[in-house]
């Protein structure tokens, strides 16, 4: 069993996302440790990209903050930062980034480095099923699980995506880009039923989730929830003082998920 699958065992997983280097790489380390303390089952780390086309304004701004921070935030620096977390964090860590930074680093070199620093998975929003071959085998060779996304528009594609699922399935709750939403209108139950016919891979719902009520509702039908913008928004607001508010927020969200276990 992979580290990622283990993190879903016996509970509803709360997955927190943050952008590396926002407001600084040092702070990112602290925030990752704080999220683990607060009960996050898995943490997604965004490697900042100049043009994150799947992100709403909150995470776009975080990418800009990270890239324009003094000293910048290169792929290399993010690897070093994760490496420095060794022995300090036990939950699985996953990278979320766009394909170009990975391509430029070199698929092989990138995945090798992921394995070395202890990254368990990779989410690439602009790598759909059709282009997955490009990276899949290389990632597998280095025990990095390439995580797939399923969207409300996936329809007849659900089956083939689910068949190839690794790690967990990232179920996109709504149309559009990332960001806090008042209400999630997609019939997620139906989507999940369809996915379940094909695979037992854990399903985590993301996009738009910010309140404990939403987390409760989503974790009652899936194996976990992913929260990004609501965390990143707090980091944007509190900057170097973000540890406490982020930790408290994650505690409340983990609590909400627990009720559904």
């Amino acid at each position, binding site marked *: 069993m992979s580290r990622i699958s283990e993190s879903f065992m016996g509970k509803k997983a709360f997955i927190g996302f943050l952008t590396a280097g926002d407001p600084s790489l040092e702070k990112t380390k602290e925030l990752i440790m704080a999220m683990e303390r607060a009960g996050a089952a898995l943490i997604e780390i965004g490697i900042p990209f100049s043009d994150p086309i799947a992100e709403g304004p909150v995470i*776009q701004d975080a990418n800009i903050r990270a890239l324009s921070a003094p000293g910048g935030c290169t792929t290399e620096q993010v690897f070093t930062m994760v490496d420095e977390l060794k022995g300090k964090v036990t939950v699985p860590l996953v990278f979320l980034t766009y394909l170009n930074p990975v391509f430029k680093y070199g698929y092989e070199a990138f995945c090798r480095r992921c394995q070395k620093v202890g990254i368990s998975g990779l989410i690439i929003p602009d790598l*759909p*099923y059709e282009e997955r071959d490009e990276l899949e085998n290389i990632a597998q060779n280095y025990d990095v699980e390439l995580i797939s996304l399923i969207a409300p528009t996936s329809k007849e594609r659900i089956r083939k995506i689910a068949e190839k699922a690794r790690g967990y399935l990232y179920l996109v709750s709504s149309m559009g880009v990332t960001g806090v939403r008042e209400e999630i209108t997609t019939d997620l139950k139906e989507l999940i039923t369809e996915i379940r016919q094909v695979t037992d891979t854990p399903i985590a719902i993301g996009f738009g989730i910010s309140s404990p009520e939403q987390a409760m509702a989503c974790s009652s039908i899936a194996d976990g929830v992913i929260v990004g913008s609501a965390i990143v928004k707090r980091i944007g607001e509190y900057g170097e003082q973000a540890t406490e508010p982020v930790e408290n927020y994650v505690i409340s969200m983990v609590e909400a998920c627990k009720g559904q276990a």
Partner: protein
Amino acid sequence: MKKGRYGIHGGQYIPETLMNEVNRLEEAYDFFKKDPEFNEELSGLLREYAGRPSLLYYAEKMTKDLGGAKIYLKREDLNHTGSHKINNVLGQALLAKKMGKTRVIAETGAGQHGVATATAAALLGLECEIFMGKEDTIRQALNVYRMRLLGAKVHPVESGTQTLKDAVNECMREWTRRVEDTLYVLGSVMGPHPFPMIVRDFQSVISREARQQILEKEGRLPDVVMACVGGGSNAMGMFCEFIPDKKVRLIGCEAAGRGIDTRETAATIATGTAGIFHGMKSYFCQDEFGQIAPVYSISAGLDYPGIGPEHANLHDTGRAEYVAITDEEAVEAFEYIAKTEGIIAAIESSHAIAQVRKMAPAMDKDQIIICCLSGRGDKDVAAIARYRGVDLHE
């Protein structure tokens, strides 16, 4: 080979939310491109509305002045809305309508593609929203008003560098919000498959006409065909039908901005490296970690950090050559063609004219160059005046 590939370039690197929609677009396009009714309707629009065929004009004075090859200009500037952009938008807007879409969205840099899309949408009764970098909405305020006059909603894009690439980002984001009733009318031979193919096909009318026209006028094929390249739609349209004619040299003229040895450039082939962005594998201006670079050119229409995947492959295989033209060379060509031929050409097209001026004198008198004059330059007059130190605003 995988679909939508040009050598190693191309592909479909987009979020899952859009995948079904681009597949649907591909199916619809495959069906309608063979549909006689669709083709008749489109040719009708191109003929009666856009004013095609466009002239293949013998630039006699330029030819004599440069003293070498015979120079022909493919006058896309004479099309309705003043550039080649109308060829593609009429095709895509008609396709949108046939697909049952009621709304189109588009990115624009200088505003040419935005104006053309707003025009086609007005004609065909489609709702239209244009995304334009905030910086560009200020530089091209007149075009913003023009689009609004045509009934389009214009959204100034405030993310990133607030220019063309950010407008494309925002269009993709908007499309993921609302795919059901909306078609993204992409303006160049870029983006995920099938866009590079669709846009090329709709623009290929340029070389289909030009090839026939030159055979009628000269009884032979040209020696050189050239066009300016940003994303590369007029160049792809101009090259397309000549690609099998191996003896015809194809030359794309990129925007060097202040020079390819400076950071203020948009010359993708000259200064870019392989990458994956905006749905395609191709060449991009970027740093060593794959962050897309801010680019610069005096021409807002060439101010894009990438190039269409088919061009990337034509470069790889050596079938086409790409040269870089600086702001200064383009502005000189802009002034030159105005004085010599009485044509105010777009600053984009002036990049290709600059290359004609470099090459023609060294060629034989019986050789032929066809240069695509992709658009008219009325939109650029104020900017050129300012470049020359004349304080003129629209």
